[in-house]
């Protein structure tokens, strides 16, 4: 019998702790598949965040270095500058990267650090129980925005990827999702391109992945995927935000 589906080589034989319907497990798989396909595992160092993916090092079978909350880009910078021929990626959630780690992220992009960031946007603080994130969309309910996010009271959702695209040092920034098979394929393609850009030494790349959070959105997994298409994309459209690398194959 031909095996057509298996655990990627660089995911450990461990059961994900993620909630049913969460996008992290899919995104982990995509990153692991890309690393396998590019044959870079032996020279890759990953930097997981504080947040839902804090235990990413229990899943990726790669050298992994924990970063303090929000400091992924700074830690990745240190690793990459110390070992310029290695491949370094950070894996960060929206609270981690777009609130407490905004400065580190913008300046890493602006310096054109040759690193790759996987930015998982589920529009809330998932691990701490669904508080408002900088990416929470207007009207969205969260445990700290009674009645939904109100721009006068809570500010408006931040366009971090668009902000990073303005910096001269960023090369490739794309926003994708994992809410459908088609979008999962697109996300994998984008992640692969981001790693290739780093391998070519071209500079800063970031893939923002819109990821369902059924638990905190209080939706079924299927409805959470629908909600991305129907609502979240109005604030965060899926698109290539910046591409200065072109076709690098």
């Amino acid at each position, binding site marked *: 019998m031909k095996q057509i589906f298996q655990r990627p080589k660089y995911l450990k034989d461990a059961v994900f702790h993620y909630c049913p319907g969460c996008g992290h497990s899919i995104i982990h798989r995509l990153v692991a598949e890309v690393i396998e396909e590019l044959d870079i595992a032996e020279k890759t*160092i990953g930097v997981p965040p504080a947040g839902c993916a804090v235990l990413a090092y229990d899943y990726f079978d790669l050298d*992994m*270095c924990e970063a303090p909350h929000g*400091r992924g880009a*700074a*830690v990745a910078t*240190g*690793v990459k500058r110390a070992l310029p021929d290695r*491949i370094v990626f950070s894996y960060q959630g929206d609270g981690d990267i777009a609130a407490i780690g905004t400065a580190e992220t913008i300046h890493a992009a602006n310096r054109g650090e040759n690193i790759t960031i996987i930015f998982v946007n589920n529009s809330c603080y998932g691990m701490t129980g669904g508080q408002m994130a900088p990416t929470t969309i207007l009207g969205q309910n969260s445990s700290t925005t009674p009645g939904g996010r109100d721009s006068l009271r809570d500010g408006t959702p931040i366009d971090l990827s668009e902000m990073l695209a303005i910096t001269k040092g960023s090369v490739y920034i794309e926003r994708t999702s994992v809410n459908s098979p088609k979008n999962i394929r697109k996300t994998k393609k984008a992640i692969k391109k981001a790693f290739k850009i780093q391998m070519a030494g071209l500079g800063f790349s970031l893939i923002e992945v819109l990821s369902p959070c059924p638990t905190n959105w209080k939706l079924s997994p299927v409805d959470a995927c629908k909600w991305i298409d129907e609502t979240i994309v109005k604030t965060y459209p899926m698109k290539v935000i910046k591409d200065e690398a072109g076709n690098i194959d």
Partner: protein
Amino acid sequence: MSEKQLMRGSQVIAEAAIRAGCRFYAGYPITPQNEMTEYMANAMAELSDGTFIQAESEIAAINMVLGASTAGVRSMTSSSSPGLSLKQEGISFLAASELPAVIVNTMRGGPGLGNIAPSQGDYFQATRGGGHGDYRSIVLAPASGQEQADLTRKAFEYADKYRTPVLILVDGMMGQMMEPVIFPDPIDALDLPPKPWILDGAKGRPSRIIKSLILNTREMEDHNWKLARKYENIAREITTAESYLTEDANMVVIAYGTAARIAKGAIKRVREMGLKVGLFRPITLYPFPSKELLEMSRVVKHFLVFEMNTGQMIEDVRLSLEGRSTIHFYGRPGGIISTPDEISKEISSIYYRQHLEEE
């Protein structure tokens, strides 16, 4: 050994770091220690394997150091008091993850923005861990240009040996003062012992994790005790202090860094007046030389703690002496630099009030 050179303290530490094989430096501008950052920028630019990053913040700088340290490179950052407050998050993570790093604090007047004058107001912050959680950092307090060179070399050795952050605690006076220095020979970074724990890509070996999150309470407790045992070993192995004219002394001044230099001058004066006064100078502030002090208290019944703050090291002195001697205190916070004359008056005033001349 190098030729004798006349150099500013801040630059001495930078040059000594380069010679110790430091190949990664990240820092943020802050007075009064910018000469150190500038020196590192130029020195790293001369090296094919050196990295200098002017970070966007103190927090970014310490976290870049954390990243470079996981990759096995001897790494350093430096700042002054307000900057050290910001770095505490990273220092706690370094200690927890058992990562080596050297952090220089050129202390200035505080709290808050304070001023840029020499101070010793960060003793508590440095010696009590500083950041959150149950940890300590090794704290070295040089008192001369030469000692800044020598202790910087040691700082990197201790950081690697014990896999823990090491603080070098100086002030603007130490940093700005120019003194002749002979540097130890440079170390080739490639000659340093290999670190079998680094992250450089899992090639031909199982993948590794460097982290501080330990959710299991039993395992966290084990980790805390492991760190505590490490600090006990450190105390046994590296505790250092200088005793100056203490053999016949019936009163001893306790001071470190710049304050110790001033106290030494004062002691020379009161010795000329026939007062039997010595100096005890802790060189490691953590671990604190408690045993040495306790031993001294068998004969010396009066100690004067002199600090450039309102009284911080005095708590370690009290803990060390366990009530066996009388402890006096003289402090000048806020960036005031006492003169040896001022200290000698304080010494002689206590000396005669306590009738020590009759002993």
